């Protein structure tokens, strides 16, 4: 145990040091973004719960159902993100060579790595979960003890997916030690996806049907038919029972708290013994495989002339050879496809065209935010990822302007494919009004061009050449600034476009007189704003790289 605390405190020290060496602007923008997120999510949950609780008869039951679903989704998300990060933290981290050479027990290394992994995988979920819990407490007018106990439960809850993910990775590597990194992560995902699919099939979450019910009679029947998600055997149900119990001061809250605590500790102890049996051994095996040199054919095995092609091929190769990169992108894409197909039912719920048009605007905004997220995660780190080749690029006759522009056009092309694909399919499903259907792809073109510029430019302005993992680069202070800028860009664009959208709706559906000059003015404003957001960030990035000492 002593060596665990030694490793553990040294890790805490590193984190503290990296925070204290950040400059004031970065700390301030960091706090600002997190603060906005916390406040924003709190506000949304608070409004949602207030609305639900006011629904007659079934209000409380509905609210509990929403919470349960929320915690279940968190559980799946946590499992996913723990699996993605656990392979790199437990096996692919250079620090491990140092740690395993120290006279410390492998279980101590495991525990400190588990903590690190849990932190990286869970913080984003916690930023949403904590406001949810607080909003629930405020809505149900819970006592003071509710807040510390339920937030403590959240932290206990985090341990379960983190420990399970590590066990899953250990077991897969033990059973199939020949597997490549890529296959391990794929298998783990297959496993989780299968479980989720089974769960949804068996449980058939009927909660969405509420929108289709009309009369009070039907609502009552619906409320009576609502079943507990997972039938009481999944941790998400216990967690929501803890909240429910604590908010009304019933002993049920304490009971489920103890149950969660017990199960969480048991999972951790189980994972501890699995790690004791498997971790060190499998780490050694993996090390042997990575030094295995085999002949492979690829985009660069034969010579290509021309710097543009070479640079792009290099980027593509590195992307497809890094499982943490393309696996995460695939998950994003799968989730988006699921989202698009879920829109198929929109014309059934919303028969009135005005509502469908509003849904299509909401969908547009949502897709822009998704693209912003993708940009921060995949485009922002691309300059930082040049770190091991920066000496060759910096001393070569290839200018940073050219490098940035090559990357820019490549990523803009990718972004356009993604955003236009999403928009066209979602608008077909929503049955959007013809004119909007034609106009949106044009606007999306600018959104893609601006978001790529922002993330690439700030990626060049705030590169992190000392970090390997692209997720960690994106989660660093520079990445958060890029995220802030991207979100601000989307927000401002939507504000500018809200005017013509409103006027269009008012003219078409409410038969108000139209105000064309205002509509044109807004579009010109949007255009000018985008020229700025395309040119300036790229320039900032290029100038910063040209001035930088390597």
């Amino acid at each position, binding site marked *: 145990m002593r060596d665990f605390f030694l490793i553990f405190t040294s890790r805490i020290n590193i984190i503290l040091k990296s925070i204290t060496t950040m400059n004031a602007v970065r700390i301030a923008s960091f706090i600002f973004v997190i603060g906005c997120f916390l406040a924003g999510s709190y506000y949304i949950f608070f409004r949602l719960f207030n609305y639900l609780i006011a629904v007659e008869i079934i209000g409380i039951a509905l609210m509990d159902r929403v919470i349960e679903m929320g915690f279940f989704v968190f559980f799946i998300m946590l499992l996913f993100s723990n699996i993605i990060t656990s392979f790199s933290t437990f096996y692919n981290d250079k620090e491990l060579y140092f740690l395993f050479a120290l006279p410390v027990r492998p279980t101590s290394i495991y525990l400190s790595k588990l903590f690190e992994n849990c932190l990286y995988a869970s913080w984003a979920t916690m930023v949403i979960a904590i406001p949810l819990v607080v909003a629930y407490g405020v809505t149900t007018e819970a006592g003071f003890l509710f807040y510390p106990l339920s937030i403590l439960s959240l932290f206990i809850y985090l341990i379960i997916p983190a420990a399970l993910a590590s066990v899953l990775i250990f077991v897969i590597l033990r059973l199939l030690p020949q597997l490549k990194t890529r296959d391990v992560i794929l298998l783990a995902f297959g496993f989780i996806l299968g479980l989720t699919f089974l769960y949804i099939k068996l449980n058939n979450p009927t909660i969405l049907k509420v929108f289709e019910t009309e009369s009070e009679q039907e609502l009552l029947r619906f409320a009576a038919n609502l079943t507990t998600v997972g039938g009481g055997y999944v941790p998400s149900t216990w967690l929501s029972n803890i909240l429910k119990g604590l908010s009304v001061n019933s002993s049920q809250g304490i009971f489920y708290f103890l149950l969660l605590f017990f199960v969480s500790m048991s999972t951790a102890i189980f994972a501890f013994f699995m790690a004791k049996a498997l971790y060190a051994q499998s780490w050694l095996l993996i090390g042997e495989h990575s030094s295995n040199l085999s002949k492979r054919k690829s985009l660069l*095995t034969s010579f*290509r002339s021309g710097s543009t092609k070479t640079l792009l091929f290099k980027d593509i190769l590195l992307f497809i050879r890094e499982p943490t990169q393309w696996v995460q992108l695939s998950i994003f894409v799968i989730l988006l496809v699921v989202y698009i197909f879920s829109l198929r039912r929109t014309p059934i719920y919303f028969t009135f065209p005005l509502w469908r048009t509003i849904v299509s605007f909401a969908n547009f905004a949502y897709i822009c935010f998704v693209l912003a997220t993708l940009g921060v995660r995949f485009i922002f780190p691309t300059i930082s990822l040049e770190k*091991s080749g920066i*000496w060759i690029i910096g001393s070569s*006759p290839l200018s940073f302007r050219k490098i940035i522009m090559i990357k820019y056009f490549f990523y803009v092309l990718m972004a356009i494919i993604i955003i236009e694909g999403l928009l066209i399919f979602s608008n077909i499903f929503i049955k959007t009004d013809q004119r909007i259907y034609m106009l949106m792809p044009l606007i999306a073109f600018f959104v893609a061009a601006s978001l790529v510029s922002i993330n690439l430019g700030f990626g060049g302005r705030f590169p992190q050449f000392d970090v390997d993992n692209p997720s960690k680069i994106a989660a660093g202070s520079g990445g958060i600034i890029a995220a802030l800028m991207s979100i601000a860009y989307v927000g401002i664009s939507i504000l500018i476009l809200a005017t013509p959208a409103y006027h269009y709706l008012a003219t078409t559906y409410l038969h108000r007189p139209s105000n064309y000059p205002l509509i044109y003015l807004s579009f010109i404003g949007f255009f000018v704003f985008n020229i700025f957001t395309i040119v300036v960030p790229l320039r900032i990035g290029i100038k910063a790289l040209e001035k930088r000492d390597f």
Partner: protein
Amino acid sequence: MKTLVIKNLKKKFGTTWAVRNLNLELEPGEIFVLLGPNGAGKTTTLKLIAGLLHPDEGDVVINGIDTRKNPLEAKSRIGYIPDEPFIYSKLTGREFINFVAGIYNVKHDDYEKKMAELFKRFGVGAWIDGFSEGYSHGMKQKVVMCQLLLHDPQLILIDEPLVGLDPKSSKTVRETFIELKNQGKTLFICTHTLSFAKDIASKIGIINVGEMKFIGNLDELSKISGKRDIEEIYLKLSEESVNETIP
């Protein structure tokens, strides 16, 4: 025309001068070896010439091209190998070499033949098609040497070329340097290995605490210091400068 002209070069990190008032001129066909203890400013000097660092003052002119006014043109004349030649860990050695040739816009003509020759000379084995994450330091050195010779620069800058090489490879490297010199290339090499300097240098520089203490050939060097053995000369010169800096 001189291959390299450095005038009053200065570089500061924070408040400490890493390089102070450096002046140097190198002709085609010269091998310049820069000696100095750890932290003397050797790597900084090389990076300033390679364009990876920006000087605070002074000029670097390569083949008559001012690196400030025309950095890319100047960079196309040089080849640089750092002391720790990192390679993208998920590229193979061969892919890395092709990548560099691509960004230097190397001509296609006898590329494959030249590469095969270089592989043979440096004893590059089947490992060249494995990911570079599994390479030893010496293997990486060989890869970057091949890369450098493929794009055929006029001025070659190498930081600690012998670290991690086995005796046979280091002999090959030595012979290659001599060959390059005979072809009229200019080499600028930083090292701690004194015997290496003695064997191949046509000009020697000794740097300490950012200041060039001496530039000349081996004979001039022994005349100044009154010693014959290069190790004694080196120790004497670098000791003096350390004493000087302690007020």
